[in-house]
């Protein structure tokens, strides 16, 4: 059935070399006016070779369109990647972000020329604060981890302002995203891990046992990475506050509760919001994101610059920390304006009623999948409802020789992006499935049918099928070990310019 073509193409799928293998330094896809050749640079002129290949416009179009066809995407189908909230990206958002009045605006223009942009930022801030029940928000963090960093620096500044800079220990459950401990460390704290319990939840007793005069904060993801709402969250917040520490909430899973629960009512002091998750800005193959961080009354004064202030009917930017309690600056300008525009467009479209429906449908979709899959897979916390994610593990298939990675690769052949694999770390062989609210029932049913058929194939003992998978994708399984042991991170002239050959 499988055969090699002469062209290397396979039907609609075109083989595509690197631009360095097809372009040339003499070719360009732009027509510019001829320069006069004046220079005031003298010896500072570039001598190092550029050697950058150019392609004409039609060749450039083909190159990148061909590449695009080797990608899976939300617009192609269900993208059930747990913890990532791969929901539909409305195109009205894209249009609004490209309005000349937003896209062709420089961050350092005089205040009189940017009133609409500042008003938009204020409106976004109002929506985020109202939805979360928090009094303030720092808009400038550029992604989730950057928002975590802003929140932890606000906590650090608040502690130092109280003369409690000696508090250095941050409690982090072992189920946390890797960014949580990495952020705490980057902010100069030490990380003290709260071990996991069998029920996938953080327990008040375990938190209390860790409390002490050196504890600065706790970082909890809620709903947590096992797809569960932390039932003791309020009591944990109270205990943390009673001990003089702060509560950082990782808002990566906010999609499950938007419009239904306000983190401010749970005792949260700081929480980042991934606009690229809950508020539908596109993931773009890895970014850009945006991570505004909402802050409690206690932390609000320490928010990083810039701040927007109203003077009369004009908005102005405060850009320097001097004379304020701001802990500093997160980035050169005002944050991810292009994402603010998209997120506000999305919020206005949904409204308060639509956003509440988002959370309800996201949770319903996940519980529907849980109900359909539970009889066929091990669902470690499946006895009670989940939030917006279904957590399965490979304990029922592993004895038959098929692991989480094999299930994931088999899904590739079925035309799906797999679930998140091996995360959270606290569940062995985790398969974390997040359908989101933008999936219709028939897509959920089709996905469940596929998963169940794969489980039946495991039971039938067809291990080889899984180990060989994927066979229908543009590439078969790739050798990660080779990539890491013999890193080849760029093209270089003189390297083997033909595609690398397999070692014999």
């Amino acid at each position: 059935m499988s055969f090699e073509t002469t062209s290397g193409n396979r039907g609609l799928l075109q083989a595509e070399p690197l631009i360095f293998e097809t372009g040339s330094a003499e070719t360009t896809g732009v027509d510019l006016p001829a320069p006069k050749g004046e220079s005031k640079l003298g010896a500072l002129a570039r001598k190092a070779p550029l050697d950058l290949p150019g392609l004409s416009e039609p060749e450039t179009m083909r190159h990148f369109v061909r590449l695009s066809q080797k990608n899976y995407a939300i617009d192609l189908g269900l993208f059930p990647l747990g913890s990532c909230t791969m929901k539909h990206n409305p195109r009205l958002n894209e249009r609004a972000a490209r309005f000349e009045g937003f896209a062709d605006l420089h961050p350092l223009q005089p205040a009189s020329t940017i009133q609409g942009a500042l008003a938009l930022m204020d409106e976004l801030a109002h929506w985020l604060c109202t939805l979360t029940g928090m009094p303030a928000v720092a808009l400038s963090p550029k992604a989730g981890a950057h928002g975590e960093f802003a929140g932890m620096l606000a906590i650090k500044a608040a502690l130092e302002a109280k003369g409690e800079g000696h508090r250095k220990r941050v409690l982090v459950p072992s189920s946390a995203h890797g960014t949580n401990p990495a952020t705490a460390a980057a902010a100069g704290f030490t990380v003290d891990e709260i071990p996991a319990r069998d029920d996938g939840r953080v327990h008040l007793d375990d938190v209390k046992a860790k409390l002490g005069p050196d504890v600065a904060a706790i970082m909890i993801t809620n709903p947590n990475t096992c797809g569960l709402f932390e039932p003791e969250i309020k009591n944990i917040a109270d205990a943390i506050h009673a001990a003089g520490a702060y509560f950082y909430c990782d808002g990566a899973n906010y999609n499950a509760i938007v419009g239904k629960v306000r983190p401010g009512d749970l005792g949260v002091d700081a929480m980042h919001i991934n606009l690229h998750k809950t508020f539908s800005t596109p993931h773009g193959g890895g970014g850009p994101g945006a991570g505004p961080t909402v802050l409690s009354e206690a932390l609000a004064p320490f928010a990083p610059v810039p701040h927007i202030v109203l003077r009369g009917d004009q908005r102005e930017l405060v850009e320097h920390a001097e004379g304020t309690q701001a802990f500093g600056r997160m980035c050169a300008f005002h944050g991810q304006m292009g994402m603010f525009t998209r997120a506000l467009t999305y919020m206005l479209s949904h409204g308060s009623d639509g956003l509440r429906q988002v959370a309800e449908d996201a949770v319903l979709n996940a519980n529907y999948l849980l109900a359909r899959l539970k009889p066929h897979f091990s669902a470690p916390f499946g006895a009670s409802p989940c939030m917006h994610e279904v957590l399965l593990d490979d304990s029922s298939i592993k004895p038959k020789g098929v692991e989480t990675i094999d299930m994931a690769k088999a899904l590739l052949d079925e035309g799906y992006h797999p679930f998140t694999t091996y995360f959270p770390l606290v569940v062995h062989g985790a398969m974390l499935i997040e359908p989101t609210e933008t999936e219709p029932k028939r897509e959920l049913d089709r996905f469940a049918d596929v998963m169940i058929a794969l489980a039946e194939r495991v039971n039938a003992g067809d291990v080889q099928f899984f180990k060989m998978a994927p066979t229908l994708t543009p590439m078969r399984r790739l050798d990660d070990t080779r990539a890491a042991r013999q890193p080849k991170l760029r093209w270089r002239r003189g390297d083997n310019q033909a595609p690398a050959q397999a070692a014999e």
Partner: protein
Amino acid sequence: MRYLPLTEADRAQMLALTGAKSIDDLFVDVPKGALLKDLVDLPKAQGEIEVHRHLQRLAEKNTPAGRTAFFLGAGAYRHHVPASVDHLIQRSEFLTAYTPYQPEIAQGTLQALYEFQSQVAQLLNVEVANASMYDGSTACAEAAMMAARVTKRKKIVFSGGVHPHYVDTARTACEALGLEIIALPAAVDDEAAVIKALGADVAAVIVQSPNVFGTVTDLTQIGEAARGAGALMVATFTECLAFGLIEPGGAYGADIVCGEGQSIGNALNFGGPYVGLFGVKEKLVRQMPGRVAGETLDADGKRGFVLTLSTREQHIRREKATSNICTNSGLCQLAWTIHMTLLGQKGLTQLAQLNHEKAIALADALGAVKGVKVLTTRFFNELAIELPAPAQGVVDALAEKGVIGGVAMSRLNPRAGMDNVLITCATEMNTDDDIAAYVKALKAVLK
């Protein structure tokens, strides 16, 4: 609601299968009283027509750069982005893909990343580049922290030519780790002042060329002095287009070359999203922050690409990671790669030359205005001028006349003692008429 496919009948049927009686039964773990009974106090859903109108009205309250005679840079630059770039990055397969964690179905993103890394390495003349950072300022902060890790020293020295917002961003990140930032006094043309600040406790000197005043500097001696003192030289930049014409940091032996890539492929967007470029010497690659794509083979022996060296990263190393960064600048990086592919060496060199010539014309025109002195002698497309009056007032008065003349240094750094200094910039977008309008308005304002 147009983005929500479930019907009421679907919801009822699905809820029945879960065994819950009502949707709120699925929120069983939410503490009593915390589950909202009413809608939050915000407007209700609106159709595409109403939302479009609302956003359009906000946009119309701004004055877009293109409606003025525009000469502002200082970290973000107005260049022409070919129409095909924006079309390609909006293809669903790029726009709505995730981080390429499943390489078998993400070769499009991964190959484009590999091409990006290769182009960045060529442009900056470095051995290795990563898959992008959030922007230039955060890339520079990461470079400072990386230098401290590599040298196990705690002091970072910034020249007086580094963009003040870059220094502030690095200060915020570095001081949290107990590192010390030495920011030398603002200086139009004194990157080499960092040499005097070198010592056994200095992890890195961070210099910028072209610097915030536009000055282009030969960094050879600074690099040698840093090496001699066991420190790294970090060369940062805000205008990556300059390297089509001037020598990049890598050619001067910089250990880390990092900065802003917005000029290629990306609109001004009021400050973000942008794309941070980050390149290092090969021996430092395992201390580098951020994602990186690498070449490998698939099970059939075909060349393919994967994210690699992830043992540096937070999802593996947690609190011991080289950085907490997770998300990169995906689409902005893709736009950069597409635009750079369209340009190629020929187009890039030509574009850079056009920018330089526009700046020469601007410098000549402004320098001829009575009371104005051009301070920057060696520039690419940006320069500082001294005015006979505080620059902020002049900028505001020029804006009233439809000219965005630049940014006052006092806005970037109020303590620089440079209240009369204006930083101004010309690109291929400026016409001779723009320059004439600027001169005319400036003469009127200074009268």
